[in-house]
Every structure is written in C-alpha cells, then in structure tokens.
C-alpha cells in the first residue's frame, strides 16, 4: 500500500481543470465582466474577481484535503498545482481572443473581459500575472486547510462579512449619507465602494467577533433558550415584541427604494407561505402556482379598476376577500382533476394549468373581458381612513398584514390535525389513506389554502402596481417561489422569509444578480438538492425524511 503515500498528480489536475472550466464558463457567459463593475474595496478588488477566483480557491482547498494525512508539503503542492492549472483555460481564452475574433460566436468575450483576465497588462504579462494569482491563492487555500478550525473559521467568517458589506456598500452609502450626512459617509466609502482601510477594519472586527462568538456563543445561546421555562417564555414574548416593533418602524429606516424591495420580498414570501403548504406540507409539487396569483390579481383588477375593463369600481378592502374567495374556488376546481396524480405528473399538469391561464389571459378570446395583452390599468391603491397608501413605505403595511396572517395560519396549521394529515400524505399516500385520512378533502384543502395565499398576494400585487399584464404571470414566478421555499427549507416557516430575502431581495439590491438570476436559481436548485435537500432552515420532520435513505441499506426504487 505504499502507492497511496506518493503524490498523485491526477488529483490536482482534475480539480484544477474543473476549477478552470468553471471560471472559464463564468467568464464567457459574461458574468465576470458584469460583476467587475461592482467594486468591493475601492481600487483593490471587484466582485468580478471574487467570482473568477472562487472556484480555483475552493477547489484548491478541496484538493489539499485529498492529500495523504500528515503530508503538509504534498497538500501545499496540490493547492499550488490546482491553482496553476485552473488558470490555463483562462489563458487559452485570452490567447484565442488575441488571434481570432471570438466575439462573432461568443458575444460576451469582449475586450473588457480580456482586460479583467489579464489585469490590464497585455496578453503576456497578464497571463503570467493570472497564473501567479491563481497559484498563490491556491497555495493560500491549501494553507487554510492546515490552520486549526479555531483560527480558520473566524478568518473565513471575517472575509465573508467584509465581502457582504462590500457588496452592499452602494446602498449603505446612501443610507448612511441620509442619517449621518455625506461627510461621515465619505469617510467610509469612496464612489460606491469601501475604502481599503475601512475594509481592513471591518475584516479585523468581524474576525474577532466571529472568534468570540464561536468560543462563547454556545454558552450565550444556552442562557437565552434553556434556563427555566418561565424565563424562556418571557424571553420569547420579549423577542416577539421587539420583532413586531422592528417590523413596524422598518420602512422609516429604509426609505422609499429599500421599502419597495422589501415589499417585493414580502409578496413573494406571502406566495411562499402558500406554496409551502402545497409542496412543503402536503408534498404536492405544484408548478402552476402562478395561476392563482394571476387569478387574484385579475379579480382585483376587474373589481376595482376605474378604466374601461373595471366592472364594479369597488374599494380595495371590499374586493380583497372576494379575490381570495375566487382564488380558493380556482384552487379547488384545478385541484379536482389532479387529485389522482402523483409526483412528476402533477408537476407537469399544474405547469400546464399555469400556462393555460396565461395564454387565455393573453388571447383575443377573453380580450373584451380582461384586456388581452394590454392588461388592466387604473387599479386604485387601498385607502386607510381617507389616505391612499401610495408610497411604498406606506403600502408596506398592507403587505405586512397579509404576510403576518399567512404566517400565523401556517404556524397554527403545522401542529394541527390538518397539518399532520398533510405530512402523513407527503410521506406515503397509501398508508395515509389506510390510516383513515380522506385524501380528497385533505388534498383539496391544501390546494385551496395555498391558492388563497397566492390569490391574496396577487390582489395586493395588482393594487401595488396599479396595472397588470398577462406577461407578469409566467412560469418563472412559480419557479421563483419554488426556489425560495426549497432554499429556505420545505415545510419550514422561517425558511420562507429567509428564502424570499435571498432569492428576491438580493437580485433587486444587486442589479448584476438580476441578470443571471435564473442561471443561479438553476445552480442553486441542483446544489441544494445534492448537498442540503432540507434547506438552510429545515423543519425537523423534513430533515429526517430526506436523510432517511442514507441510513438504510439501498433498496430498489420502484414502488
């Protein structure tokens, strides 16, 4: 068995090529160039460079982990080689673009991209710099592997926080200027990016805080949650109180633009709560969820619009319950045909329903009634005591109310009889039926309640935008909502909010992300299912279920 001790050059070659191909792909699809427009630390590093080097660094770290135990030199060599090889595909791209006009095939291989890859130093010197940079970073990543967790974890966390603060520096700059004046903001930021010295300070502070948290955090957590039940209960009420106050004053802190972002996040969270019931609790994969959103929005439009298409001219608050009722009926009507379908068939058929609704809304057939491609205009905003809630920081409260209702209903349902019936259904339909659960009722209730939340979200959405068009209701909305509950954790309620924030809020805050949003959703869905199928904030039941197959011996698939 002496061979295993020897250095195996296949490992760094494999990892390096993989890293190189990933970085190359990110470059040729235009991500690196677009992201390079966002400076993280002024004049030092851009987001483009971060995503360019992310794969080489990560894979060097992993390659170092593959070295035989105790062989520090081998591990460092692996890291170095991985980094070195990772640069080669990129250099190939640089040289190819020097001799051919690659742009006629790949529109994103622009001079700007080549300049980023060569650090603006021409092909020869630039290639050398690139190789040097990836090799150095690869070696550093390998070094990180040997630093004890006690030190490396705070450093990584510190880097992460610096990165995050750097990404949002444009928005923070604006807020800090608003509250403390531009003089103070100018100390921290220079033209949308952090000053290097500030970045260093943030890194050091974040590292120290993380170190402190990692060492003392457990004790702190134990004091909050454990001690005695009475104290725990009181602490919980205090926490809820603080959260409510924070939610109420939030728009005052955020200003108009960020309130608008939060509103979009909350509308998706509202839909997320609904889909969470259908997919997360009852296990019915519904890809046509946008249908109910559309139905809610169109009902609101028809009932309240002051334009030609409006039929009733109702006020928002009177129309709202009607919209929800209509959505519930739609949920039941569309639910009946799919009652007997399972899993993947259900997914495709519901996807079909979503598309049917969209195509019908777009068609000339229904044009006289719901406006066709021109949509419905002049939908009024809601009034509260004579005041129209026009600005996003006011409209926020309407959405917040909806989200709180949805969250409360979901929270009460999880532990209730119905919630447990749904979960039984999700685990095994036949067994659930044998246990006396009425499949028809239980499934239809899941569809109906899910549709109710979605219809509510749609009605609010229509009033928020004051005009709706069939193109707003495409499949991507369903996929978006599905992604956010998967990322947050299927069946988990805090997960919905967190998922909505990451998948809806981030792309709105960072325009670059919005361009590649669907690409990233795709990757995210695959990576989540491979690595963490229960999501980031999993519900306990779901976690057990998804990891059950790992404990048992392999069994055959059909059944």
């Amino acid at each position, binding site marked *: 068995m002496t061979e295993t001790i020897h250095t195996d050059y296949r490992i760094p070659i494999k990892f390096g090529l993989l890293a190189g191909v990933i970085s190359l792909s990110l470059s040729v699809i235009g991500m690196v160039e677009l992201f390079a427009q966002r400076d993280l630390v002024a004049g030092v590093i851009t987001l483009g460079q971060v995503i360019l080097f992310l794969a080489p660094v990560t894979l060097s770290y992993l390659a170092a982990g593959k070295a035989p135990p105790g062989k520090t030199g081998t591990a460092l060599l692996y890291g170095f080689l991985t980094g070195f090889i990772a640069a080669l595909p990129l250099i190939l791209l640089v040289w190819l673009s020097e001799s051919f006009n690659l742009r006629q095939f790949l529109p994103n291989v622009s001079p700007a991209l080549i300049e980023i890859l060569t650090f603006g130093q021409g092909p020869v010197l630039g290639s050398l710099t690139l190789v040097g940079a990836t090799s150095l970073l690869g070696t550093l990543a390998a070094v990180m592997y040997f630093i004890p967790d006690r030190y490396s974890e705070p450093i990584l966390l510190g880097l992460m926080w610096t990165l995050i603060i750097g990404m949002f520096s444009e928005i923070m700059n604006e807020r800090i200027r608003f509250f403390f004046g531009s003089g103070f903001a100018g100390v921290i930021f220079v033209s949308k990016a952090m000053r290097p010295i500030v970045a260093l300070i943030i890194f050091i502070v974040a590292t120290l805080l993380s170190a402190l948290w990692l060492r003392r955090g457990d004790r702190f957590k134990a004091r909050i949650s454990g001690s005695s039940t009475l104290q725990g209960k009181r602490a919980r009420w205090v926490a809820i109180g603080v959260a409510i106050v924070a939610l109420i004053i939030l728009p005052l802190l955020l200003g108009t633009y960020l309130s608008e972002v939060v509103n979009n996040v909350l509308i998706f969270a509202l839909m997320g709560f609904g889909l969470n019931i259908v997919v997360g609790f009852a296990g019915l*994969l519904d890809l046509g969820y946008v249908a109910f959103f559309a139905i809610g929005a169109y009902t609101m439009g028809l009932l309240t619009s002051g334009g030609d298409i409006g039929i009733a001219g109702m006020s928002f608050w009177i129309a709202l319950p009607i919209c929800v009722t209509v959505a519930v009926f739609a949920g039941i009507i569309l639910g009946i045909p799919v009652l007997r379908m399972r899993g993947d068939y259900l997914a495709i058929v519901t996807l079909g329903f979503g598309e049917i609704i969209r195509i019908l809304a777009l068609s000339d057939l229904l044009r006289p009634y719901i406006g066709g491609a021109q949509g419905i205009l002049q939908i009024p905003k809601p009034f509260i005591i004579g005041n129209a809630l026009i600005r996003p920081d006011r409209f926020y409260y309407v959405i917040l109310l909806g989200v709180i209702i949805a969250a409360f209903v979901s929270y009460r349902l999880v532990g209730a009889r119905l919630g447990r019936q749904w979960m039984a259904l999700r685990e095994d339909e036949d067994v659930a039926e044998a246990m006396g659960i009425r499949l028809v009722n239980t499934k239809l209730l899941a569809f109906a309640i899910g549709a109710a939340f979605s219809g509510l979200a749609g009605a609010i959405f229509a009033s928020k935008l004051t005009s709706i068009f069939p193109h707003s209701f495409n499949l991507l909305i369903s996929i978006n909502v599905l992604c956010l509950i998967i990322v947050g954790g299927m069946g988990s309620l805090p997960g919905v909010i967190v998922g909505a924030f990451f998948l809806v809020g981030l792309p709105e805050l960072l325009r670059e992300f919005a361009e590649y949003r669907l690409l990233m959703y795709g*990757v995210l869905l695959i990576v989540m299912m491979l690595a963490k199928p229960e999501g980031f904030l999993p519900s306990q039941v779901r976690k057990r279920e998804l990891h059950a197959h790992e404990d048992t011996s392999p069994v055959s698939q059909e059944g």
Partner: protein
Amino acid sequence: MRLRLQYIDWIGLFLWVFRAIIIILIVWGTIATLLDNPYSTRQWTDIVIFGIAQGSMYALIAIGYTLVYGVLFMINFAHGEFFMSGIMTSAVFIATPMAATGFLDRQPVLSLVIIGIVAMTVSVGVALLTERVAYRPLRKAPRLVPLITAIGASFFWQYFFAGLYGSQVVPFPVPDGLEGAISMLGTEVLKTHLLVIITTIIMLLGLNFFIMRTKTGKSIRAVAEDKDAAALMGIDVDRAVSITFATGAAMAGVAGLLFAGVFRQVQFFMGFFPGIKAFTAAVLGGIGSIPGAAIGGLVLGLVESIGPALFLEGLGIPAPHQLKDVIAFVMLVLVLIFRPQGILGERLTEKKA
C-alpha cells in the same frame, strides 16, 4: 363509509361533466366549421402535412422522455434544453460561418450532415454532464428530489446558453436546395417538411434496431425492467443509464436540426415549449413505450395543427391559433385524467408515479 362513497361520486360526476363539455365543444366546433367550410382542400392538406412534420419532431424529442422514464422513472425536465443546446451551438459555430462562406449551398448534404452531427454531439455532451452531475447522485433519493434538480438543470442550461450566445434570435441558414416545394401525391409539399418526415422515419428505424437488436440495447431494456437484477447479471447499470440519456439526447439533437430547418431560427428559449409538448406526446402515446412516443408525437402534432382550424374556429373564437398551446396542455390533462396509460402503454400514473 357512506361519506367516502359520496365524495368519490361527486368527483366522478365533476370529471364526467368536464369530459362531456369538452366532447360537446369539439363536436359542435367541428360541425360548425365543416358546415361553414372556410378552407380549401389545398389548405387542409397543407395543415395536415405541417401537422405531420411538427408531430415527427415531437416524436423525436418524446423518445428521450420515454427512454429515460422507462429506465429511471423520472421526468427529465431538462430534455428540452438538450434539444436546444445542440442546434444552438451548431447554428452559431457551424451553420452561420458555412452560410457566410457559401459552403452551405455548394455542399448542402455534407453541410447538413456536419451540422446535424455537431448538434447531436453537443446535445449528448450536455445530457451526459447533466446526468452525471444532477441525476446520478440522487438516484436513491425521494422522487421529488431529482425532479427538482431537473427543473434546476433546465433553467441552468437555458440561461447558460443565453449568456454564451446572447439572448437574441439567431437566424438559421437553410441551403437553397431546400427552398420551395415539390409535387407529390397530387399536392405540393415543402421540401423542409419532407426532409423532416424522412429523417424522422430513418431515425426511428435506427433507434428501433439499436434498442431491439444490439447488445447495448438489450442491456438498456434489462435495466429498464429491473435495475438490481440487471446489475446481478453483470450489466453496468450506470453505463446503461448514460447510454439511455445519450440516445435520447442524440434524437433531440437531430430534432433540433429539423426544427431549425423548418422555422429558420434558433434561440435559447426554443427548447422549453417543444420539450413540454414532447412530454405530452410521450404521455399521450404511453410513457415508457417507444412506438407510443412516435404515435403520440404524430397525434399531438396533427391535433395541434388541425385543432384550431377544425374545432376552435367553428366555435367562433377569434384568432384560434393563439390557443394552439392550450390544446396541447388540455390534451395532456385529459389524457392523464381519463387514460393515464396513454394509447399504447401500461398504467403508470398511480403505481409507478
């Protein structure tokens, strides 16, 4: 017990009424159209031939769904992207330069073969990569999990190729030799449509030979029958699954070439609707059955092209062609409700799905 029966009756009644309404609408529309007769015989023939060509392409794509479903019992949601990736790449790197240099018109047959082979190769590559990364590690996971990765893979490839080649529509050059129509069987048939139909027949015969007569085909059938038993017989299951994906993707690659030839353009989004339609075709014919996929594709293509003219127009619906896609989806729903086993298939929705 009485309560339960009541519920079943109620649902059954709803479905019965639903079916009756659809049948009445179709019959009414057809009669109204036939009495009014807005189209000439020549137009009807054109519609039917277009339907057959469209259906042939659906059939080729549907093969991929059916093969993968037969082996893994999963709906490969990303199959439409295999279809798109091959012809997109081939159009950008091969077809456009060929047309620019005039090679396409000088050597039309050779060019089409090269374009087709490149498209097939890329489609197969994308399929193998997807299978390896997104499906293989999850073969023993709950059924919903690979379906979600498949949706992820679908979106990933769509927007990856959108980023790679740009999201605009790329015109697809067709050799001059394929322009125009030829007379046969007393009518004019567009040459591209003829090419589609002939290529599909050749590909289907080749596929049938591959699956039924070769040793590799036999191993695929064995794995589809029972993976564990096949493994015990010394069949490399992973390899058989990879070959299944590759075969489906190769068919999709050829379908991509035909599709581009008929519609003269390619775009990153082009795989999505044909993908869903082809899945409908596979379900229609009975998923898991190869002749079923072929027949399902043909039926769907015909219904989709004849449908708007035949029964929607008679109902007095304005611009019935806008509702073409609705017909396909409604057919999918109807088949899954009333005949889930499809035209030629075993009953699957409840047992294996």
